[in-house]
């Protein structure tokens, strides 16, 4: 596989109330963005178990995006605050095990923000392209 052909594979966990609906909004508005991510719908970003993220990275996902409601807008009051804390800790952990913490990204995208969903996809794909493939794909970090 040459670098030119390589397209990052990204998993996106999106909460059904805000970000999944935001992705739907990007669709109904026909806003084009790169086709690298696959969305997994969860009720709340707070459902995203750190194990899901680690498993995705272990399975050689090049990036994991978690998208939830803006602070104060969470359909479940405070789920997104907990997500925010978990992601911050997990980024530290990723550093420890030799993975770039930038491979994990957290964004708040409301049901109205189709543009933001598309922009996030574009910028995340670009960022991952700069980082290159998941180091585990070549036998793990040094």
């Amino acid at each position, binding site marked *: 596989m040459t670098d030119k052909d390589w*397209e990052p*594979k990204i*998993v996106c966990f999106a909460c*059904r*109330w*805000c970000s*999944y*609906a935001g*992705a*739907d909004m*990007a*669709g*109904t508005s*026909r*806003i*084009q*963005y*790169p*086709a690298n991510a*696959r*969305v*997994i*719908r*969860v*009720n*709340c970003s*707070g*459902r*995203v*178990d*750190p*194990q*899901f993220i680690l*498993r*995705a990275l272990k*399975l*050689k*996902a090049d990036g994991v995006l978690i998208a939830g409601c803006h602070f*104060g*807008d969470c*359909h*479940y*009051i*405070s*789920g997104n605050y*907990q*997500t925010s804390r*978990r992601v911050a800790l997990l980024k530290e952990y990723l550093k420890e095990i030799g993975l770039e913490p930038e491979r994990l990204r957290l964004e708040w995208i*409301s*049901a*109205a*923000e189709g543009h933001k969903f*598309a922009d996030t996809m574009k910028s995340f794909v670009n960022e991952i392209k700069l980082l290159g493939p998941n180091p585990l*794909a070549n036998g793990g970090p040094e």
Partner: protein
Amino acid sequence: MSTEQPKIGVFICHCGSNIAGVIDIPKLVEYAATLPHVIVAEDYRYMCSDPGQDLIKERAREKGLNRVVVAACSPTLHEPTFRRVLENVGLNPFFFDMSNIREHCSWVHTHEEEAALEKAKDLVKMAVARAAELEPLEQKEVDVKANVLVVGAGISGIQAALDIADAGYKVYLVEKEASIGGHMAQLDKTFPTLDCSSCILTPKMSLVGQHPNIELLTYSEVREVEGFVGNFKVKVEKKPKYVIEDKCTACADCLEVCPVNVPDEFNSGLGWRKAIYIPFAQAVPNAYVLDTDHCLGMTPIACGKCKDACEAEAINYEMKPEILELDIGAIIVATGFELFDAMKQLEYGYGKYPDVMTNLEMERMLSAAGPTEGKILRPSTMKKPKHVAYIQCVGSRNERYNAYCSRVCCMAALKQARQIREKYPDIQVTIFYIDMRAFGKGYEEFYETTAREHGVTFVRGRVSEVRGSFDSDKIVVRAEDTFLAQPVEAEADIVVLSCGIEAPKGLPDLARVLGLQRSADGFLLEAHPKLRPVETNTDGIFIAGAAQGPKDIPDSVAQAKGAAASALGMVVAGHVKVQPYAAVVNEDLCAGCGICEASCPYDAVKVVDDRAQVTEAQCKGCGTCAAACPNQAIAPQHFTMEQIIAQLDALFQEAK
């Protein structure tokens, strides 16, 4: 876990050309057929249509399917449709999953057919993997309290409240102002019929005030909403009016002694009111209210004159805010709009030139009950103007403020222009516009008549500047006449700014309290722009009127009636189905550490005898506890660890 082997049917929708125009359907079907547990994979032009649904039913019966995956649009749109299909063939409706290959694929990767096909394959593969892990769930029915809370008592809230109350159900109508009526009460006449606004509104207000099924809570605001569809627990704060409604006879004795003058909000600041006042003569409830922001002080030392003057002994300075706790079945939000603040658009000189006014101020001036008793006067000279110029789209259709069209200002300007010309044929009226939008029933005809028979002048061009004349007391309006393609200047005595409609400043807070989303324009977001315009994404909460977006009176009333019918549908049935997503504890794994208890936003999990216990009615299935549990001993149903891991593993199968 069900012991039966999964037999999965995959049904792929073309959605006309919406999906099939981008994604190679035969290839996707061929691929789907190779996936584990897939017994049948087929496509159809419109899977959601009757023949499409029949196809799923037939195959399910023929092949003995026990799981169904539909690859089509967003589950937000058609998950309920296909779950019903499963129910119809005797399958548990939760043995269903959907791949979103339209909103998340064909519509957003329109020009990358190959990448779109690869993504669609992955999405189908993930859904199939998840489907194999699905478990049958029982939808619970919950009772619905036999009443409705209506928030906001403008024309939309009033109409919704009356419809529900007339059907025999209890309504709590909450209004933050001292009187119901909203903006419609401020209007003089309504387009396109020119019937008097008060004459059609005030009888309805009076009905609301007297209706045995309506409990009117004015000067009140919703503070907290908990619970779920059919069983909301709502806290409403009743602010103190310092006047006992039942005792006040609206005799106005207090007015005469009150020494404070305050700009009158009802007259858009064109007149004065006292610190103790009634918003307008036809107010419901017809009682006074004491505005403590402007009152000198409610003690005999500071003032206390109103209390002395009140023979009915209706004034009570000791009143305190009251919190009412209501058990509510359904909620209708009809919180209306606010006018765009003309001060923001500096180039139009509002606040700088007294003769520049808003459309609502002109409306009050046109009203026989208004501050000038219907006379049109230049505020600077108090004399009759010779030329009135209207500027359209103030704060609307403008990227600097609001990109959307406010929908009512064109017709409002036409209506006012016509009223001015009918009253004073010698006053010249010019309307500067971008497009005249006369979209409703009878509106275009009204526009035509106003232009042809009433001698109103129209100039097409956005006004760039409003300034004082250098050599007279007139105001100069500068614009480009885009028909002539040249700049024009007009001297006017009064400039009316057709200010647009905005979401009220308090709406973000209320949306949070209710758990509702707002669209990019700031108004409340409906569940679907076409098919579910009065529902929100929160079951049991409906929206009506300008709370959802700019609307004129007929549209507001229509939506209010729709919201009332939807709310009634639930309340009359007396019960409603709720999603069975509550968390379940695996007692063998639970160590009783209590992390789940600490993480639950709803206090739905408690550790009892060293094991976590979920109160099902309180749990909303967010899954925050599951992500926090170090032992994976707790998980929300339909979003279990196995189901999510199955999707991940399927996605990266080849990479392994």
